[in-house]
């Protein structure tokens, strides 16, 4: 048995929700990036510019497979200062991605005297209210007017 309702003409009254959803997360993305940079800066030990902080980048807004809208802040590229040697061969200078450096900050390396300095949870909590406010404003502007 199949029950269904059919509406016609409603789409003429509603805006394009893909456009609305993408615009909402695009507006919220910079808030996430700004908070991520601030929280990562707190766990950077050295003075001066940090390539880890500068590598924080906002992704392009996209629609997910569950009709969700996604934007993220991520660590782009590879470190220009950090390399490592293969543990067995002791050869080579392999590049370290900024994302891996961020993982070392977040979770630490407890057996190597590097404590976890978590910043992801703090970033999310700090960004949440402002990001939601910005998304709500976009929604109100595009849908309720």
């Amino acid at each position, binding site marked *: 048995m199949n029950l269904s309702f059919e509406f016609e003409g409603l789409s003429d009254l509603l805006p394009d929700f893909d456009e609305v959803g993408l615009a909402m997360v695009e507006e919220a993305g910079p808030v996430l990036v700004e908070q991520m940079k601030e929280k990562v800066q707190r766990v950077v030990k050295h003075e001066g510019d940090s390539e880890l902080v500068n590598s924080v980048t906002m992704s392009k807004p996209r629609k997910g497979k569950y009709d969700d809208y996604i934007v993220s802040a991520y660590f782009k590229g590879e470190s220009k200062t950090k390399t*490592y040697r*293969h*543990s067995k061969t002791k050869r080579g200078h*392999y590049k*370290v991605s900024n994302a*891996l450096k961020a*993982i*070392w900050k977040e*979770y*630490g*390396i*407890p*057996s*190597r*005297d*590097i*404590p*976890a300095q*978590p910043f992801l*949870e*703090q970033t999310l*909590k700090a960004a949440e209210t402002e990001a939601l406010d910005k998304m709500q404003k976009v929604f109100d502007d595009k849908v309720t007017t």
Partner: protein
Amino acid sequence: MGYPCRQDLYDGKSDKFIVYTYEDERAAYYADNDEEEITVTFMVQLITPQKYDYFADKVRLKAALKSEGFTVVNIQSWLDDEAAGTEKARRTIFSCEYTGADN
């Protein structure tokens, strides 16, 4: 579980150990202009050898945390990385929250 458990860092010899980090604390409930309860976020890391069957330990540690009143929000597990020189270890990370009186 019998494994050494330390805050933030472990400088012992055991290849199985637990470290925890006091990650975040914020007010949960207010009354009379004061915090009645706080919520604390902990990161608990179980470190085991790469080839060790860690799953039973994961189940036991999760049960132990829950029995002490923690909410286990999330568990992740991965093999550690070559670049840090810790590729022989597995990390299992429990993100936990605890809400209780501020004292």
